């Protein structure tokens, strides 16, 4: 059996039925607890949607302006830096716009197994494979050190060891050259220039001229077809409404502007969306007519070749779904797979969706790991750690494997990261929701935790580990019978932490027994144990309140130590659901 690690997940309040629609100037958001009191709803950790709102505390941020927890769903991401995860070079956003979100240097992944590819010479200096044989001349290939795939297998070799992306863009699998999108564009632009310069406005005439260097019926790959079409429609648009021609410079569509968008819509809907200006100007738009303009006529025999290949080469020659997914175009055969240029990665700042304040901001440089702003929930709300109360019995495999129907006690340790004393109220349903109702009792639902003191750096570092050590002492006491868990009393407290006891009577996981012992839900659908249904999860509603000086909070700092004498103290309250995974119920 796999070992069980206890966990505490926190529910972000943003998932509470309605989207937060608080205005900027408002006071702190409506207390979540009150809304819960009203409908008296117990959070069910097994509800299908519960997984989407539960996070470990480390994944949550805290907005100091809204005084609220923020999860990945209620923050806005803002890209600070684009970079290639392989070569770690920063990519300017302008390049991302024009070249796409892949590394344009020499960073590729293996199309077979996604491991990184390295460049090596085909005829290495006396011998050797590997990235460093670059010093020698000769054609180069991309090699995978994991599955031994080589670009030689798809007939691709390179003249230079660098700038592989640009080289690859010019070679088809098998070694034939590709006319790249850029070349097409250039070609297209030249032709356009001819059109605008030449007095002949007759469309057909122009077309004949431009057929000079490219075969109008060539079979295009998806990428060039797209670029051809794109170029064609750009030129059409430019002709149709000269005012918009400016916005199309440099390969950017200019889709961002509503005017351009309505024009594009108008192309196909008879102009009803188009603004009056362009409507008045344009004549009829024509469609693409040949390969140069992106038109591909499907020939009825085009699939014969594929069927042939399937018949002769068999299953082994086809690409797997995973392999196909990584490709930018639809690919059937392993021989048609192409090396995958690394997708770029980003460094992102995070903003609160409600008040737009920045919650986290990394340094823009790729190689630095510091944050300029980092408001994490870990520093603002008490963390919870779970430990078994009784020491491990000999022969017991794990303290977190609990016996059905046997009362088991756990210690919940709350650690306060704040510099104020906080009052904590915790509540659990008497019975956990779900088919197997476990009985839960918190022996001390209300307590105060001392303030975190100075040298908070250090205190943070101490983290849960330090607590564990202290707790071990209490465990020893327990075995000596010094004290028993007592209702209404805190089990143990330290400088900024408090342990309380929660008692659980785990349900039996057996489906036998008289009906009256079963929960309603179980009667409705009997049947086998579902995945992870044996995990004992306790929903806990936590309400924390404390007094903070109003001034200190506006400055946004955490370090304000002035124990407000004259300052106005402001009451703060925070309430949220947690789910504690305390153990796995043993199966008979």
């Amino acid at each position: 059996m796999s070992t069980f690690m206890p966990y505490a997940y926190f529910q972000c309040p943003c998932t509470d039925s309605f989207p937060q629609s608080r205005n900027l100037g408002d006071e702190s958001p409506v207390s979540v607890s009150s809304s819960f009191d009203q409908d008296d709803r117990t959070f069910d950790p097994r509800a299908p949607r519960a997984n989407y709102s539960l996070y470990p505390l480390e994944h949550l941020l805290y907005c100091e302006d809204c005084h609220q927890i923020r999860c990945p769903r209620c923050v806005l991401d803002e890209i600070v830096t684009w970079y290639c995860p392989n070569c770690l070079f920063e990519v300017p956003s302008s390049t991302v716009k024009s070249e796409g979100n892949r590394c344009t240097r020499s960073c590729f992944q293996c199309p077979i197994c996604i491991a990184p590819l390295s460049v090596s010479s085909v005829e290495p200096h006396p011998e050797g494979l590997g990235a460093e044989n670059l010093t020698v001349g000769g054609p180069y290939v991309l090699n995978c050190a994991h599955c031994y795939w080589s670009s030689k297998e798809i007939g691709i070799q390179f003249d230079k060891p660098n700038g592989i992306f640009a080289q690859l863009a010019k070679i088809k699998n098998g070694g034939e050259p590709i006319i790249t999108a850029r070349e097409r564009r250039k070609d297209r632009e030249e032709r356009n220039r001819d059109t605008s310069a030449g007095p002949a406005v007759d469309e057909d005439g122009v077309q004949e001229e431009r057929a000079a260097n490219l075969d109008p019926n060539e079979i295009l790959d998806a990428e060039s077809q797209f670029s051809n079409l794109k170029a064609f429609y750009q030129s059409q648009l430019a002709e149709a409404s000269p005012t918009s021609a400016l916005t199309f410079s440099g390969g950017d569509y200019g889709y961002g502007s509503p005017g351009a968008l309505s024009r594009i819509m108008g192309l196909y809907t008879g102009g009803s969306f188009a603004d009056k200006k362009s409507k008045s100007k344009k004549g009829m738009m024509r469609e693409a007519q040949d390969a140069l303009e992106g038109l591909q006529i499907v020939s009825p025999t085009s699939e014969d070749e594929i069927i042939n290949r399937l018949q002769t080469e068999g299953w082994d020659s086809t690409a797997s779904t995973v392999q196909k997914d990584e490709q930018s175009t639809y690919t059937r055969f392993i021989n048609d797979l192409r090396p995958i240029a690394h997708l770029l990665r980003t460094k992102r700042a995070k903003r609160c969706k409600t008040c737009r304040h920045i919650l986290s901001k990394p340094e823009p440089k790729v190689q630095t790991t510091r944050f300029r702003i980092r408001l994490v929930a870990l520093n603002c709300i008490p963390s919870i750690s779970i430990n078994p109360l009784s020491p491990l019995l000999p022969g017991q495999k794990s303290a977190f494997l609990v016996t059905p129907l046997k009362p088991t006690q756990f210690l919940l340790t709350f650690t306060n990261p704040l510099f104020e004393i906080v009052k904590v109220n915790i509540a659990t349903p008497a019975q956990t929701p779900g088919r197997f109702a476990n009985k839960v009792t918190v022996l001390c639902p209300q307590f105060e935790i001392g303030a975190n003191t100075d040298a908070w750096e250090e205190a943070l570092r101490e983290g849960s580990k330090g607590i564990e050590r202290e707790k071990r002492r209490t465990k020893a006491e327990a075995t000596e019978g010094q004290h028993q868990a007592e209702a209404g009393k805190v089990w143990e407290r330290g400088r900024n932490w408090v342990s309380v006891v929660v008692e659980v009577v785990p349900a039996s996981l057996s489906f036998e027994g008289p009906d009256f012992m079963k929960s309603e839900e179980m009667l409705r659908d009997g049947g086998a144990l579902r995945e992870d249904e044996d995990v004992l999860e306790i929903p806990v509603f936590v309400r924390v309140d404390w007094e903070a000086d109003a001034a200190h909070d506006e400055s946004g700092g955490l370090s304000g130590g002035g124990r407000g004498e004259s300052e106005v103290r402001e009451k703060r309250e925070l309430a949220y659901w947690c789910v504690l995974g305390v153990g796995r119920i043993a199966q008979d």
Partner: protein
Amino acid sequence: MSSSKRVSTAPAAPKSPTVLAPTLVIGEHAVLTGTYLITLGSNTVVHPRTKLNSTYAPITIGNNCIISERSIIGLQSPGSDQGMTIENGVVVEVGAIVEAKSIGEGSIIEVNAKIGKHAVLGKHCKIGPMCEVGEHEIVPDFTVLFGNGMRRIDRSGVEDLKLKMVARQVEILRKLIPNNLAKFK
């Protein structure tokens, strides 16, 4: 798990009968145990803390092989006593468990890979990290196992190059690893 099997066998355990080439390199704390014959070819390097066990069948390892630390060679439980043959230029990486009947020339058994009992591996195969070859399985030449047990045939045609690389690596390792050969004779 390799760790559970690593019952501490002190180097002082009964020495197995061996035929060792004079140019062989065996590192410190390598363990050769068993009652059947262990034959190690010339220019082969046995890293420190490698275990060769001939309790159930003889082991023959060719020339220019590299057997890395923590790898376990030889049958670990009774089976056919036909013996195991590892051909020339085979690299067995760290923690691999090899119980095969034969391993073809130039094959690479990667870290923590497992070759089941009596399996037959062709030439120039590569068994990727943590990959497994089943018992009695016959793996054709140039097969590459990778990922979660995926397979393909390597057609890059650089096997001679790889053999040369192994030879170069052996040359270097001979200089680096203090030879303990005398102890095993």
